[in-house]
């Protein structure tokens, strides 16, 4: 067992465990924080896979951005204050059945597939290559992604302002 394997197992457990806590926790704030740990764990897994840039992005975007958004969402819907933290679940039986079947099927599929693997390249860093790729082969998706983000932001703002407008009318 070399260091890589230890790190892998450790953070795999953290990730999956945190995810499980997130799913099954009754307190939604706990769930959110569990999600944070899970995402951070995934970032470490990325590092193990020589994807340093993605790992950093993962931390920045998910942990620093999306998670904050979710917490905001929690608070804006007044759930952090009103103590209605009971996250009663529905469809419990079919959901767990389906999830189990999915896991089994996937694991079976992964295990039985004969993967055409290549020898892992030892990369020092991927940022340079990614940058070149982004600016050459992927320039169009890159720009479209930028436009998408812009539209999403504008759209989100628009929807939220309309929200305030509705509220004002009601008052």
């Amino acid at each position, binding site marked *: 067992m070399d260091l890589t394997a230890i790190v892998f197992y450790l953070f795999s457990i953290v990730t999956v465990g945190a995810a499980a806590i997130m799913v099954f926790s009754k307190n939604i704030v706990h769930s959110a924080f569990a999600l944070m740990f899970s995402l951070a764990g995934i970032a470490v897994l990325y590092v193990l896979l020589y994807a340093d840039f993605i790992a950093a992005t993962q931390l920045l975007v998910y942990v620093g951005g999306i998670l904050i958004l979710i917490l905001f969402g929690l608070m804006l819907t007044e759930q952090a204050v009103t103590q209605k933290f009971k996250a009663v679940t*529905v*469809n419990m039986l*079919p*959901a767990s059945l*389906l999830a189990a*079947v*999915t896991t089994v*099927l996937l694991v079976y*599929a992964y295990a039985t597939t004969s993967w055409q693997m290549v020898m892992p390249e030892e990369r020092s860093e991927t940022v340079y290559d990614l940058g070149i790729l982004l600016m050459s082969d992927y320039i169009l998706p890159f720009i479209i992604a930028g436009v998408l983000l812009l539209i999403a932001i504008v759209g989100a703002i628009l929807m939220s302002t309309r929200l305030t407008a509705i509220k004002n009318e009601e008052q």
Partner: protein
Amino acid sequence: MFTQLPLIILVLPLLGFLLLIFLGKRLPRKGDWLAAGLLITALALSLSLLISKLAGQPDESFTQTFRWLAIGTHTIHFGITIDNLSAVMLVVVTLVSSLVHLFSIGYMKDDPRYSRYYAYLGLFSFSMLGIVLTSNLLFMYIFWELVGISSYLLIGFWYEKKSASNAANKAFIVNRVGDFGMFLGIMILFVNFATFSFKEIFDLVEAGQLPYGSTGWLTTAGLLIFCGAIGKSAQFPLQVWLPDAMEGPTPVSALIHAATMVAAGVYLVARMFPMLTADALLVIAYIGAITSFLAASIALTQFDIKRVLAFSTISQLGYMILALGVGAYTAGFMHLVTHAAFKAGLFLGAGSVIYAMHQVLHAQNDHHTDAQDVRNMGGLKSKMPVTYYTFLMFTLAISGIPLTSGFLSKDEILAGTLAYSTLNGHWLLPLLGFVVAGMTAFYMFRLLLLTFHGNPSDRERISAIKESPLVMTLPLIVLATVSLFVFYSFNPFGAADGWLYQAIERPISMVPNMLQPVDAGIFEEAVHHIHGTAMVLSILFALSGILLAIGMYYWKKIKAENLVQRTGVLYDLSFNSWYFDELYDRIFVSGLFLLTRISKWFDEHIIDAIVNSSAWVSRGIASVAGLFDTNIVDGLVHATAASADRAGSMLSKIQTGKIQTYLVYVIFSFLVLFILFI
């Protein structure tokens, strides 16, 4: 000299028209001085042109052409010809036109559309000069129509009156009927000769070419072109428009119906003379004689001063046509010239009288009395001396009393007709001619006596009458002067010695020999022989006519009323213009309207009905198909729909509206597929 000058003369009135139509109201005095000035300039130029032509090159003819358009391989030109005929006509037209311009300054001075009036006069003069100058048939036709339209505008000048616009329409449409024939004639000539030019057509005819290779078509073409003259010169059977055209302002009548428009027909015949066959000329002569007689007989009984003059115009034009028809070419043309002067004078004199009457009636606030009815006049002699004496002069001239211009020309015509009958045996022609001479003298003196002599119909009214202003009497004096014989011949009994006879010679006929009219030499010989007889006879007839008139209306020896009763039907015929208007109304106008109604009915009820019924049939088929559709095809559809509805309401229970339930379904089906296919 003979190239630029005619063009300038032609363009001057057009310039007046354009200036007045666009700027008329903004010019000082509404631009009457401009129009009159331009016409007087044109007159001066025409006079100088005529004098230098006659003095310098009396035997030449000058033609210049401009390319108008090219079509296929033909090139069509606009051309101007100056020969003696057109030079004389130029002077006649510009003289009468400029005098009418002057006269109108007085007559029309209060009219609200004063400048428009002068603009139309300019357009009219331009068109008329175009007819005179043109060197080809096509442009003859073009200016011909332009004269038609400008006369339409002038006759209908007081368009608020329904009768005026009716008269204008009638004038134009009747003229169009004549033009229709003329157009056909032009087409026959062009299709066969590929040219419109008079000269080239004559040359080709002389060279033995005939339309469609037959002399019959040559005669036909000539007669068809003569149809134009029938229309414009108001010859039988298209004479009906002219009396009505008196609805226009009186100076316009003077211009249109004395000197210019109606004379255009005569001018056309004179121009076409070289290609008219003997047969065609005979027809022309008879039409002239009949017209002359008909119109004179109508003029005998009319009471409207202008209508009498109108019928006398038709009658005199008949004379001219008759003269041309029998081959007395120069006499006919000379009568055109002399008649232009004295008939314009008569109309202007009548205008002067009407103007004076109007002034009085207006002052007396009388709107019922007809200012043109001679029965409302009488005894004007002392009130309007200038008008009276000039009118007398014109009356003498038209009656053919020696020492007047009218005598000279009429005498020659009658002599020519008589000579023709001695050569060809058509005795009716001179007979009608002489009878008409007597009738003319009668009705003109009747008019003179009723208007100026006798007892005033209404003493108060007549005593208020005043002589017209100088601007109106001056043209009368001028015209009266040129109605004297000296201006045409120094021999009061022999027109043949005058300059006009020298200048205008009968052109050589170009038609094939067997169709030639009587040879000019032989004809002259016969005329010479018979001249004395004709002169005596014509004076006799005229004097008896005058005597009868004086007897009836001055001495009152013969009661007019008795005569009316005695003649009965004849009087009715005459008084109602032989019922031509009614006849045409019944046959042509009603016929036309009947045809239009039939066409409209046919269009709406037959053609459209076919269209609509085809639509109806297809709608019928459609409705049958529709029944099938609703009951059978739709039945199946409805059944399907119903079952779908039932199934739907069952299945809709699955729709819980909860998104997570749906997601469960989705994942479940996905997994099933996953298992099935892997």
